């Protein structure tokens, strides 16, 4: 109960910081990813992400605290191993979002940089989103993630790790340009060589150049299985 009051206070505080014309929502964000490693070193990945909000700063107070489905994203990637540290991927994506279902094509270059403490994961993506009666959205995104083992210099099965990542996303739809940013802090556990679980706080901001600067704060739980 104490924790819940603290959370409510935090949300009211965040809301008061931002003016009413700024959109704020928060909720739960479970995700799961399956990665199959092929004999040629390439990989196939399937991922599902589900967003359920429980608070929005809408005008009608009765609508503010309400658990409701926001969106579900399904995606699949084929990832080519270009070298032990570099890979190229092509992905397809489908979004289930009330009144705004969408499909997306994704192209990606990812590489790993091994550092003295943990490693850095770089991911450069371009994507094109198609939605009925809307112009195509073209985006360019770059994510930098720092994966830090918490119990030594290397991550061994059974150990915890931290991931700090940030991803600016540049989008163009018709003549409208926008920037989104995603800052994520995750606490993970490498259960064994095949299973990982991550608890994260994902803070997304967008609408910098359009009406309604938007903040979204997600409490994530992610499960990663590779075989």
């Amino acid at each position, binding site marked *: 109960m104490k924790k819940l009051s603290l959370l409510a206070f935090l949300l009211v505080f965040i809301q008061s910081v931002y003016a009413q014309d700024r959109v704020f929502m928060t909720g739960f964000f479970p995700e799961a990813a399956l990665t199959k490693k092929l004999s040629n070193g390439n990989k196939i*990945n399937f991922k599902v992400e589900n967003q359920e909000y429980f608070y929005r700063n809408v005008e009608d107070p009765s609508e503010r605290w309400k658990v409701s489905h926001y969106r579900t994203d399904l995606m699949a990637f084929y990832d080519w191993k270009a*070298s032990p540290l570099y890979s190229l991927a092509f992905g397809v994506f489908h979004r289930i979002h009330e009144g705004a279902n969408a499909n997306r094509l994704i192209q990606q270059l990812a590489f790993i940089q091994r550092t003295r403490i943990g490693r850095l*994961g770089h991911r450069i993506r371009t994507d094109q989103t198609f939605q009925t009666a809307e112009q195509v959205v073209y985006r360019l995104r770059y994510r930098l993630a720092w994966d830090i083992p918490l119990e030594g210099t290397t991550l061994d099965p059974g150990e915890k790790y931290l991931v700090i990542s940030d991803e600016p996303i540049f989008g163009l739809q018709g003549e409208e340009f926008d920037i989104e940013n995603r800052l994520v802090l995750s606490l993970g556990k490498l259960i064994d060589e095949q299973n990982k679980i991550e608890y994260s706080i994902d803070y997304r901001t967008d609408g910098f150049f359009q009406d309604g600067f938007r903040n979204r704060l997600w409490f994530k739980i992610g499960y*990663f299985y590779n075989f």
Partner: protein
Amino acid sequence: MRIYRFSLLFAACFLQAALVFSQGKIEKEKSIKKSEVPEAALEWLDDAFEEIKKPKWYQEFFENGYSYEAKFRFQEHFYSVEFDSLGRIEDVEVEIQLSELASEIRETIEAYWDTNYEKYKVLKVQIQYSGEEDDLEDFFDEDSMEGVRIAYEIEYHGKEISGADEIWEATFDSAGVFISKRKIIIRISDNLTF
């Protein structure tokens, strides 16, 4: 002929086993407190490197035992000092740049890469000093080379002429002659990639 074949097979198996053993694969590594380190290791480090402040201590577990490792920065280089389970010094590794090696040693190493790889990129170079406890101590605090053996441990990304494109860790002797290598397994990064 049959005995000859059998002996050859036996020798190959033995060599393979020896190679696997010599790689000493670390199964688990964790950071530990100074209070968990054997006294002998703390004393040796204090005698050999009087000026270092707070080294970070780790315990490494192998299939058949464990060891201790101290990591620290000293005189602009990263050091890694390995001790056995009783705290006896095993070796000291110092990270350097390839350009810091004597030119004849570097040329010998580069000749090995040029012969065996289509392309390569050096990632990390370490000089490994090993020898008796007192000899190693004298080397670090008095610069005496007596009884100290030198080898070079180099991590590099190399595409072999035969096709294997991997991250390798190879050991070269004091003259830069290739001794052995192993493939470095990169842990899957599905959470960073997708």
